[in-house]
């Protein structure tokens, strides 16, 4: 199996998600402190839960997810590796690729909010948080494959 190139989710996406999670956690903490001032035990418990979940996501789960996820495009296949506790590797042959869907979120250039879905009959592979360049590269390659399939 000849590997053409490997792709990983972009670091910008991780940072963007961390900022979003931190803002949400901070907002929830402020709201809990304001509205549950009269119930201190419940307030402290909920604040601890929110901060704990935020910490877990920001510093453990998301970094592991980004570290473990990768996509490899080979000569005649595309594969995706990922998972945190339950790991998986998905392989799709070049001949199976039917079409692709590219989802670009606003400001995706800075947030790497690009998603690429490779469709096949009876299955598909979703690639998350790709950089603009990687998305274009994979998109062009898949286009070439689907055109070859039509010939």
């Amino acid at each position, binding site marked *: 199996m000849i590997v053409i190139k490997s792709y990983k989710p972009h670091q910008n996406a991780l940072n963007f998600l961390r900022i979003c999670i931190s803002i949400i956690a901070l907002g929830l903490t402020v709201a809990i402190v304001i509205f549950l001032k009269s119930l201190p035990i419940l307030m402290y418990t909920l604040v601890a839960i929110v901060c704990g979940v935020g910490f877990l996501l920001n510093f453990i789960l998301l970094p592991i997810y980004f570290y473990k996820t990768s996509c490899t495009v080979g000569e005649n296949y595309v594969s995706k590796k990922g998972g945190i506790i*339950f790991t998986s590797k998905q392989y*799709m*042959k070049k001949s199976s690729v039917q079409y692709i869907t590219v989802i670009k979120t606003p400001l995706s250039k800075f947030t790497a909010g690009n998603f690429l879905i490779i469709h*096949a009959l009876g299955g598909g592979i979703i690639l998350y948080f790709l950089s603009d360049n990687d998305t274009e590269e994979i998109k062009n390659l898949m286009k070439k494959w689907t055109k070859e399939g039509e010939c």
Partner: protein
Amino acid sequence: MLALKQFFHKRQHPIKILGYTTKSFWLLIIPLARSLVAVKFDIATWLRGWWLDILVIGIIFLFAFTRWAFVTYQIRDDEIVANTGFFGMLRVTIPYNKICCVSVTQGALYRPFKAYKVYIDTNSGTDKSTDLVLAMKKKDIEHLKSFSASPQTKPKFIYTPRKRNLLIFSLLFSSTLSGVIIFTTFLVQASRIVGREIEQRFFYKLSSYAKYFTLRLPKYVVALALIIIAGWLFSFCVNIVRHWSFTVTRNQNNIIITSGFITKRFHQIPVDKINYIDIQQSLLMKLFKICSVQIHASGYGKGSREIAVLIPVTTLSVVKRTMSLLIPEIQSVPIDIRPLKRNVMRYILPPIWLCLGIPAGCLVGNWFLPNWTEIFRFAGIIFELPAIWLLIVKTASIFTTGIGISKGYANLSYCSLYKFHMVLVKTEKISKASVYQTPFQYMRNNISFKFNVHGESKLSHKVKNFPQKVGEDFLKEKFMNTD
């Protein structure tokens, strides 16, 4: 006259107008007919008293007629084009070479009018809906068949199962749950149309039978048993009526399946559109060396409670012989890799937990609710029996699980719940192969495979617990390196 003929030419059979009326239509028409009889066919009185209902029925009919009038279709040389949906706004074009299954059914309502319902399906769309459904006249059906099929040649092979085998098939594939669902739906619909008498009569009968048997058994046990038996019997009857006079014919490039006693069914499946063959067995069927063969082609077996059967039930040797004549294009290949026998616990641990969990749950329940001892004992026995059976099936499955890939064909043998599957598929039809690992498998260096095959659904075939190195190498060598 010519204009009228032209109008009907491109449209569905007029019986479809009834199909376009609402489901509640019958709720209105039956009381209306009753009232007409009650006033001894005095139309003037009837109109004065029931004008609002008649008006509503008229509007429903007008709406149905408008829908029917806007739906048109054309059977062209290389495709079928139809304008469907409200006001015919949805234009559907299906080239014949993309059709995976053409199903033609004729129910009791359609038969006197010589109308047929046609379902045309392709590999696109969803597994819940059919791409195109039309009510056609006979000459249009013949027209469609002549275009979508290869030039009509003499059948190469015809397989007709014995009636005894059909009975066994219906016996084995009857589901109590589906029977109970059908029966309940029937009861609800019937009570909506003719009032609650039928429902009350059923429950009165059930309670009288329960009273008869309660001399020895608790009442709820008898009621539950009666519901299960009735549901299963109903499902059995539905299956037998559906598959009566079942015949499979192989002609040039198509498999033609006909069946049905009340509703006549005809399915035409191009052989190259068959995604895979699934040879299914239960543990008892394995012991008796019999099996049932099902095929997966988009559109076949899609109807509610329909089974995509190719050979209902017969012995393994007959299946082998018949398959080589019916579909020689898909071959069986030997198993290359199997799970290690020392990993038997990975197969039997979940059912063992289930077997232990049920009595434990009953004991805990009994401790909290001591007055319910009898119910917990009964529930414990009822749920423990299938759990023990599952343990036996899973123990047997370690000897049958495996994957084989060679000469462009794959053999995926696995056990899903109580059923053993042997899936035969061309490797070109496998769209995705996945390797997955749970934390427990990680500790023992094991992996499982998931194979997605061409079709509308994203259903996958899971073959579990292979040594990691062997499994990954096998996938790379046998699957990824072939194209």
